[in-house]
Every structure is written in C-alpha cells, then in structure tokens.
C-alpha cells in the first residue's frame, strides 16, 4: 500500500485516488484505538497550528475537527463568520491571509460557496481541508461513512448503498457517491423527483423514487436531512406528506425480508426523514458514525501534516 497521499489538500473525494481513501481508512483505524485509550492524546502534531474557519453553521463537524486536532496535540484557533470582520466586508482571501500571517499551518474550512476551498488552495501555502462547500462536497463525512460501513461489513466492495432524501442540496450525497464508487460499492439515490438533481444519472448511480423498492434493494440506507434552510422554493407540499412517502419508520423496515444498516450524517429531523424508533434502534449506527468521525479527521490531519 502507498505511504502518503497524492494530494496536499483534501478538497473533495473526486480528486483523490482509491489508494488515498484506503490509506486514510487504514490510518483511521489506528487513531480509533488511540481515542479509546485512557489518555486519548498523542503528540504527533504538537508543532502544528490549525485554523478552523466556519462561514456556515456546524455542530458535529466543527466539534469533531476541533477534538481531532486537540487529540493530535495541535494548537487550534476557531473562527466563525458571525461576529467577525467578514461582516464589515472583508474578502475571503484577505480574511484567510490575515489568519495565515499568524503562522497557521493548516486550514479547515466550511463555506456556503461551491469551490471556496479550491480557490483558497490555489492562493495560500497552508494545507486546506474542505469541511463542506455549499452543495458540492463534504469529503470527511464520506470517508467516515465509508469507514463505518467497512467496520460493520469488513468490506465495501459489492455492497449496495442507497442514499435517501434531499440529494439536490446535499454535499454529503455527492462525496458519498464518489467515495463509495471508488471503493467498489453499488450506489442508488432515492427521493422525491423534485429533490433529485437532473443529471444525477450521469454519475452512474441507480435512481429510484419508490422508497419501499429502494429499501428492499439496499444493504445500507444512508438517510439525509431535509435541508429546509437551502430550499428557496417548495419542493414538496408539506413535511407531513414528505414523512408519509419518504420517511423511514419501523413498519417499513419490518416489511423487508432482510435487515439493513441505517446511517444518518445528522442533524436528524426526527419524525420527518427518520422516525425515532429507527434512529435509536440496533440497526442504526448513527452514533458510531460520530465516533468514527474523530478518528477519520485525525487520520486526514496526520497524513496531510506529513506532506511537504
């Protein structure tokens, strides 16, 4: 297996290789052991300073990155757009260059504009990690999802994974599709036609609008959140109707002749895309995903910090 990543930045899954993904997953399993020790900290990145720059709201990803950085002994500074000079009209590049002038080695960035981290990676020397750019990519989420599936099944190749819900607004969906396909899984997307991107078939995924058929097909159901904050127009009549046709609940799962794994990147709209009895059931690995998220982010930071 290769020893280092082929990239200096983690901008998306699309532009990294299958070997890169496997190196990250492999390294993450070492870090999963570290975060289960009595002392959950190693000194690998003690000479590195990392800026977490979040221009969009986040709970899980920001905490997960911050914890991963602290577990690796890096120095961490946090920046969120609200309450900053961005509100006074400072440009993205100026903001980041000012932060980098304080001798920062890596930048973890979430931004509402597609391609913002790519733009940044062309103009600054620091390593950039994309923590979500608009509706484009969210690579560490896809990596932790793949890690969680692999942990349960031992392999990803040949597994059938269906992504349910709001595919149109989801960066998790796109990164997951790239990642799962590179690792040899079959991918389906399922949701109301209005929430499926028009050219989704070009990505070589199966498309299904009937929830029961999709559930019957898959081994893993990765359920996405309905992103009401990104929906500027009405894509479905009411949340109640969405829950009725596309909500996954226990009775639907009991009608299947097999057991499937339930995943959700969070935050869950309980009772809309996923009912509470499914989210909290033994088939759900939602909290494993959160734990694995820290290990995956430690692996990404460790491997990128090792690049020139």
């Amino acid at each position, binding site marked *: 297996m290769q020893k280092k990543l082929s990239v200096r930045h983690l901008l998306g899954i699309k532009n990294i290789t299958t070997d890169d993904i496997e190196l990250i997953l492999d*390294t993450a399993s*070492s870090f999963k*052991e570290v975060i289960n020790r009595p*002392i959950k900290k*190693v000194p690998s990145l003690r000479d590195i300073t990392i800026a977490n720059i979040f221009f969009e709201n986040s709970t899980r990803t920001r905490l997960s990155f911050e914890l991963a950085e602290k577990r690796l002994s890096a120095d961490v500074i946090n920046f969120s757009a609200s309450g900053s000079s961005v509100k006074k009209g400072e440009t993205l590049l100026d903001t980041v260059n000012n932060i980098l002038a304080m001798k920062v080695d890596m930048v973890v960035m979430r931004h509402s504009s597609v391609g913002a981290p790519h733009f940044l990676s062309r103009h600054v020397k620091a390593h950039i990690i994309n923590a979500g750019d608009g509706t484009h990519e969210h690579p560490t989420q896809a990596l932790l999802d793949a890690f969680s599936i692999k942990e349960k099944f031992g392999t990803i190749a040949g597994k059938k994974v269906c992504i349910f819900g709001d595919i149109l607004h989801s960066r998790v969906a796109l990164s997951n599709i790239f990642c799962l396909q590179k690792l040899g899984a079959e991918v389906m997307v399922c949701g109301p036609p209005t929430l499926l991107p028009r050219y989704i078939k070009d990505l070589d995924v199966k498309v299904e609008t009937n929830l029961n058929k999709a559930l019957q097909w898959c081994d893993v159901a990765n359920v996405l959140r309905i992103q009401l904050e990104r929906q500027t127009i009405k894509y479905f009549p009411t949340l109640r109707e969405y829950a009725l046709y596309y909500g996954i609940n226990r009775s639907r799962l009991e009608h299947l002749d097999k057991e499937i794994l339930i995943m959700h990147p969070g935050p869950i709209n309980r009772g809309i895309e996923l009912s509470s009895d499914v989210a909290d059931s033994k088939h759900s690995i939602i909290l494993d995903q959160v734990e694995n998220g820290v290990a995956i982010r430690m692996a990404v930071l460790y491997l990128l910090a*090792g*690049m020139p």
Partner: protein
Amino acid sequence: MQKRKIFDNRLLQITLERLCYEVIEEFDEFENTVILGLQPKGIFLAERIKQNLNRILQKDISLGYLDPTFHRDDFRKKDSPLRPNQTFVPFLLEDKKVLLIDDVLYTGRTVRAALDAMITFGRPAKVKLLVLINRKYSRDIPIQPDYVGMEVNCMQHEKVLVELKEQNAESDNIWIITKEEN
C-alpha cells in the same frame, strides 16, 4: 554487500530461554506484571518470551502490543508520514510492573517514544527494558537496556537484519549486513 550471521534458530532459543530466567530473577512470580512488545518486530519476541514464561511459571502472563509511531520525534522529518502499526493493550498499566521488549536497540529514539506511548495507559510502578540485540556506542539519547540477548559493535553503515519465522522467513536468522562503501 557482506552478511555475517550472529543468531541462528538454536542460539536464539537458548538466548531467549536465558533471558526468561534473568527476568524471573527480577520479577519472581510475575505478580502484577505485564509484557509489552514494541511494534513491529518486538511483538514476535515478546510472544515467544511469554510462551516460555508461561511454561516455566505455569501461569498465563498478560501481553500487549505497543506501537510508538504517534509519539516519535522524527514525524515529518521523512518524505512520507510514518505508517502506524496496531496497538493492543487490553489492560491498564496503573501500578503494574512492565517488561518492555524490542528486537534491536540502536539510537534509543524508538524506546523513548514507546515510554511516552506507554504512559497513556497509566502510570506503571516499574519499567524494565529487554532487547535481543544491543548496538553499543550508537545511542542518540541516554537509554540503556536491563536485559540483553547479545551486544554487538557495529559501524553506522552496518545494519542488523532480523528474520523471524513469524514474518514468513524460512528459519530464524539475524545478520549484520555491511554495505560496500564507495
């Protein structure tokens, strides 16, 4: 390239047996004592020493694998990040006596990293270091072994090559390899 054999199968067995009796002198019945093998090669020797001790003392002694990679001081001094191995320490070290085992002691940096990695599992009461081969006069930092299988004097351009059956070698052999100097 010249190759000089310093251990064969038989000598290795005799040496490991002798080391076992030496550690029993110190640790007696191995009460409250655990063995930690250092990744990657120390774990194989640790396994063998554990089997010997189990046979001699008629009890099961706890063994863990410790990987010092994340605690090393040469991370990012090399072209690519150091690849970690598995750490498997299924017990706490708080107030335990610990026997650390590695194959070759050279600069001492691995052992220094291992001591750091070790204390993330608790504060041991006492730690002793056993190495199969001690390369003398080559230490970068002041770390010395307590039990030694063999002491060798090597030059910097010489390398100690450890081949063990556990790594699919045909038989156990340890060599000193001298690269031709240009």
